[in-house]
């Protein structure tokens, strides 16, 4: 962990707090309404709002998780500096890539 990673970690954390609260509200709403794929996609397809919200969520979460995983690996595994960098970037690319794919899947018509 260095100063830049720390600031990025805390900044994404601060950003994620309201996003996660919103996401939890969505989950609790959806869980009580037994939504089908049609109902969900009906709301998300073509929506700039949902696309923007979840696009931002994905990038922030991917950054936050990648840095977090790097810190855990640094303290609990024997990985050296290069291994940690590789792990962090691999995690970011995987999470951001899959995440944006998922956002595209539900937003793009």
């Amino acid at each position, binding site marked *: *962990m*260095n*100063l*830049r*990673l*720390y*600031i990025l970690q805390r900044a994404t954390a601060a950003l994620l707090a309201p996003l996660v609260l919103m996401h939890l509200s969505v989950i609790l709403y959806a869980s009580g309404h037994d939504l089908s794929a049609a109902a969900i996609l009906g709301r998300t397809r073509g929506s700039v709002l949902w696309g923007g919200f979840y696009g931002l969520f994905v990038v922030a979460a991917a950054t936050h998780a990648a840095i977090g995983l790097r810190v855990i690996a*640094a*303290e*609990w595994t024997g990985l050296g500096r290069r291994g940690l960098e590789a792990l962090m970037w691999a995690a970011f690319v995987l999470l951001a890539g899959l995440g944006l794919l998922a956002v595209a899947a539900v937003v793009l018509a």
Partner: protein
Amino acid sequence: MPDIEVSLWRGKADGRYQVYRVPQRDNQTVLDVVTWVQRHADPSLAYRFACRVGMCGSCAMTVNGRPRWTCRTHTAKVIVAGKLEIGPLANLPIIKDLACDLTPFFEKWQRAKGRFEPRLTRRDAAQRVIPTTPARLAADAAIECINCAVCYAACDTVKWNPGYLGPAALNRAWTLLNDERDAGNRQRLAAIAAVGGCHACHSHQSCQQHCPNHLNPTASIAGLKRATMAAYIRGELE
């Protein structure tokens, strides 16, 4: 009172616990127990102490898994089912038995720039320090550290991150950062913002929970985190 079954660490890192039966007394401290073993059971036992009244920190050891000052730990308070377990402080190389090598602890103290850098010379008038400014109050709240290494031994981040400067060194850096007489804060901020500096702290607060002087390195480190962030935003740090 029945005898205490005391397990004492003997040897170096590849040593083992050895059990001694020690008479229990009223108002007895763990340091009394260790001293009894060395005088009556095994003169080859190595341990450290100095003041024996809770002001020097030399007698710090691990008692039942926690780092404490043994001269200030009454046996009646820590004996469990008639047993006591005493070892050297954790996170430091073991020299022998209950004595560990504090060199890495003090090296990190220097690396964190825990040394006062004067601005004035003897030819200048002494600088007036107002005791009630927020900075001076912050420094005073953390200044009573006597380098006993209990916080260092309690910290898992020290254990998991060999490069981490540790709570005591960073706590001292915080007091100097708040010292208006000190001229070395540019280098000090760079030192504690480097890898292994204040940002490695996860706020477990084991340091604060165990400090025998009731200091709060976690709070000091939080202050350092804020100071380094502010310096970064101002462009003063990389």
